[in-house]
């Protein structure tokens, strides 16, 4: 190229600067909202605790009633942290799957992880429940066996998919394989349900509702580093994710080792979604909806923006959904999955009905 061009730099236009400003303020706003929602989530629940007491407890002071300290420290705090971790994990892995498969309907469970975990839980609750008296045992041991079985089921499906990702050339083949694995495992769950007594079925269904509430501090010590690692991997994969926006052929031509990137994307998603499902149940909807919401708000498909945005938005949405589900001031708790879908569906409908539609935000 001629030497005169070397010194010329194209200045950013006014509209470019304006949209950049909007994007950065949105990210900042999301971070602030996340902190606020975290505080709200801790402050409100079935038991009414004065705000001043909440602040006292959070800053390490003694509450007027010991039970309040217990509720906040042993229950609400880990629950809120779990919500942030799970929401961020599901939203980011959903984003990864949508880009990898170039499919706006993809979510973290698209490769059958959800179904695998369900099978594990169903086997424990439905098949062995009767023998071991599972229902009378929903204490610590019950929780642990539930988590262990969910991990086992999710790992089984994930392992199959990861092995397949190593040698399958086309992402679409992988997608179909994952879907079929999902159908097959769901079928086995159906058969198990068919031969079970109502009490067992209810215990299984309670698990499928999803909840952030069952995670203890001790379990959080496992969940947090696992999800941290998965999110770190997602950040490291931001650059190839952007290249994948152009499709695998272009990505390859620009120097992306597509097979390897695909392997790590699937491994990361499996870890993120698998861990969340194991500890919180199959939390639906966040994984598919949050990436769309972020694309629409940011007017961008650039993953350098989308990864941090979905991370924050996922945590925020999970906190708010959990807050609504806990019905502050009442003794009832709504199923979490019902809340995420009821609050989220109108948002997705709004995205779809916008002037541009999702086509402009997403490669279809």
């Amino acid at each position: 190229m001629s030497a005169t061009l070397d010194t010329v730099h194209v200045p950013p236009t006014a509209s470019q600067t304006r949209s950049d400003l909007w994007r950065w303020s949105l990210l900042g706003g999301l971070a602030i909202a996340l902190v606020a929602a975290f505080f709200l989530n801790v402050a409100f629940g079935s038991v009414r605790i004065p705000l001043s007491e909440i602040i006292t407890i959070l800053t390490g002071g003694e509450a007027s009633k010991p039970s309040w300290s217990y509720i906040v420290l042993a229950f609400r705090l880990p629950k809120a942290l779990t919500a942030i971790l799970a929401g961020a994990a599901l939203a980011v892995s959903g984003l990864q799957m949508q880009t990898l498969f170039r499919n706006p309907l993809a979510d973290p469970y698209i490769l059958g992880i959800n179904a695998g975990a369900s099978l594990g839980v169903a086997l424990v609750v439905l098949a062995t429940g009767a023998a071991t008296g599972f229902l009378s045992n929903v204490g610590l041991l019950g929780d642990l066996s539930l988590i262990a079985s969910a991990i086992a089921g999710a790992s089984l499906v994930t392992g199959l998919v990861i092995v397949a990702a190593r040698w399958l050339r086309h992402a679409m083949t992988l997608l179909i394989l994952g879907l079929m694995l999902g159908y097959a495992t769901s079928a086995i769950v159906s058969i198990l349900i068919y031969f079970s007594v109502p009490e067992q079925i209810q215990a299984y269904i309670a698990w499928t509702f999803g909840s952030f509430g069952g995670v203890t501090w001790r379990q959080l010590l496992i969940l947090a580093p696992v999800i941290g690692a998965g999110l770190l991997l997602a950040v490291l994969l931001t650059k190839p994710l952007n290249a994948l926006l152009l499709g695998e052929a272009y990505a390859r031509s620009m120097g992306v080792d597509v097979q390897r990137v695909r392997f790590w994307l699937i491994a990361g998603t499996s870890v993120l979604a698998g861990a969340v499902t194991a500890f919180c149940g199959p939390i639906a909807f966040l994984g598919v909806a949050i990436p769309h919401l972020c694309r629409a708000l940011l007017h961008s498909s650039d993953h350098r923006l989308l990864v941090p945005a979905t991370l924050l938005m996922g945590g925020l949405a999970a906190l708010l959904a959990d807050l609504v589900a806990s019905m502050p001031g009442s003794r009832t708790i709504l199923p979490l999955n019902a809340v995420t879908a009821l609050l989220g569906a109108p948002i997705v409908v709004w995205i779809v009905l916008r002037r541009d539609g999702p086509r402009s935000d997403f490669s279809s």
Partner: protein
Amino acid sequence: MSEPILQTDDLAIGYRTRRHAPHLVAERLDLRLYPGELVCLLGPNGAGKSTLLRTLAGMQPPLRGQLRLAGTDLYRLSPQELARRLAVVLTDRVEVGNLSVRTLTALGRYPHTGWSGRLTPRDEVAIDQALMAVGIADFAARSVHELSDGERQKVMIARALAQEPQLLLLDEPTAFLDLPRRVELMGLLRRLAREGERAVLLSTHDLDLALRGADQLWLLQPEGSIQVGVPEELVLNGAFQHAFRGAGVAFDACTGAFVFQHPPMGRIDLVGHDLAAVWTRRALEREGFVVSGHEDPPATLRVAIHDQEGQTVWRLHHEDTYQDFPTLSQTLRGVKTHWFAARTEQ
């Protein structure tokens, strides 16, 4: 002459299949691509243009033979090293979603940036140069999905240039464009080859454009061989006509264009020398008439072009009568009416 950027020796291309013997598409390919050169890869459908391009792009290993990019075996380069030397523009229209022209162009820096993809000032300069070389610096901030097909194609080329490749491969880049955009694109690619000291290879179905714009043609024959030469040479030695022979069309080596072959309808006289006469002749030939030469005896039909007070008038003579037409369309209709009437009488 300088060293070739791309060099193949006894290259055989095709598909390896799991169970059967490899499917050979073309063999004994000894090709050279030099810096500053624009080469068009031509061939009838199914001759293997895409296979050859994919092989040269490092996406489909050759069945045999040597393939060197700037002196190194192309299939031994790492994906990153390859992407720094060679960029491709594929034929399919990509839906990239909501990216600005500049962000999309910046993706071309992929093989030059670190793990985070952070752009150094050096990268920014390369992006600016790519945008300007293609002439889209003005709408760098616009979103790609607002662009027309032609503009989008230019963004994809800018992105390829941002890779700073020595070799640019394009698979049918003119496929979605209208004729003026195609000519413009061809001119752009010529300039990119000349000014950037890089080699540009494109496959195309646009024979006319290739004949006019390419430095060299690579002509894949249906039998799986390839002919290389300057466009005019391949017309003169008949390779061009051979590659594209088919029912109903013929390559007219005099005009350098493809013409429909109809059974000739008959001979007609044409009188006139201006531009109107040139296009009237084309219209008559398209309809299947042969326009009389100087030494032919008078034909039964004659079209004479007159100028009446600044208006062109077509006068159709038939035996002793004549009829005036104000437009060429009406003239053609008149000619055909007379012709069919005369034939029914016989």
